[in-house]
């Protein structure tokens, strides 16, 4: 029982659970759903889960945010002592990049969804796939 108590009170455990849940729900949304909007939302969840894992990689126990706050203290040795206790800034920068990329891709996906809905009046992927095949056959035979 004690072991389980320890595990459930760990922050680490819950962060893992949340990120895995986001990733799995996202993959479910992309792979198994028939609705185009749900696919886009699934993509958003997936990216969020991966980003949590990435930013988690930079965390250090009992470390502080990577910002030098004592600005008046210009002694280089003091600054170095402060920065040695800071968390890793690199994953934070990478996650910032990844978030912006994900935002761009999702906006693009949404605009495609708008276009498809205007064209076909439905967002069911099976119906759309059939419509695409039909269009292809029409265009192949119509060229003559």
């Amino acid at each position, binding site marked *: 029982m004690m072991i389980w108590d320890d595990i459930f009170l760990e922050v*680490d455990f819950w962060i893992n659970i949340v990120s895995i849940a986001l990733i*799995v729900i996202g993959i479910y949304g992309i792979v198994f759903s028939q609705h185009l909007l749900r696919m886009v939302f699934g993509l958003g969840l997936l990216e969020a889960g991966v980003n949590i894992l990435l930013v988690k990689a930079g965390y*250090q*126990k009992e470390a502080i945010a*990577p*910002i030098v706050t004592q600005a008046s203290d*210009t002694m280089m040795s003091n600054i*170095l002592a402060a920065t040695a206790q800071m968390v890793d800034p690199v994953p934070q*920068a990478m996650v910032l990049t990844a978030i912006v990329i994900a*935002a761009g891709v999702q906006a693009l996906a949404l605009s495609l969804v708008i276009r498809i809905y205007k064209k076909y009046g439905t967002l069911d992927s099976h119906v759309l796939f059939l419509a695409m095949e039909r269009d292809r056959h029409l265009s192949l035979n119509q060229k003559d």
Partner: protein
Amino acid sequence: MQRWTTILFLTGLSIVLFAIITPLVLGQSPMLVGKLINASAVNDTGAANLVTAVVLAYRGLDTLGELAILFTAATAIGIILGTTDKTQTTSSPTAGFIVATAAKVLFPLLLVFALYIILHGHLTPGGGFQGGAVLAAAFFLLTLADSGNNIKHKVTQVIEALAGTAFIVLGLVSFALQGVFLQPWLDKGELGSLFSAGSLPLLYLALGLKVGAELANLLSSLANVEK
């Protein structure tokens, strides 16, 4: 039947992911590069915010690429949705009294806040991306409040082009001076004061304007899809 295979697949996926991810104990990452950067960032760049030092100096090319991706997305959306440059001939409904009043009050506040976030990017949390998002929100609020007051596509286009060019030119100047692209230059100044960290605040200003114009463009082309 299909439902059960789905559930089985997802359960298996979660177990596999759990097995992969669990050994990554929180707070014990080796931080090989992070330690080196923490030790030398203040000396190298003069920025109090080490994340800014990483974003703009150590990984500056990533930031340029990211900016380009946002620009690509905005351009592609412009093509896909076919931005109609007509100045709102259809009379869309006004936003109503509440939003119009709120926009009047909030717009200057948001503007100041955005500029604060951008200009203090090297000192406090925040920076070009976050400030740019707030900037875009401020201008989009105006559009929401008064649909006649559409975001001027041409103006944002010019800002976009100039800001992006400024970012690259700042990098190219250091290329011309020192032979290295995107190296921080200018005087590093006193750590923690507004005018410090050399060229980084300038880069962040260009970045913020670019992101703001980009997002405003994106929002306006999403909002102006012809009915």
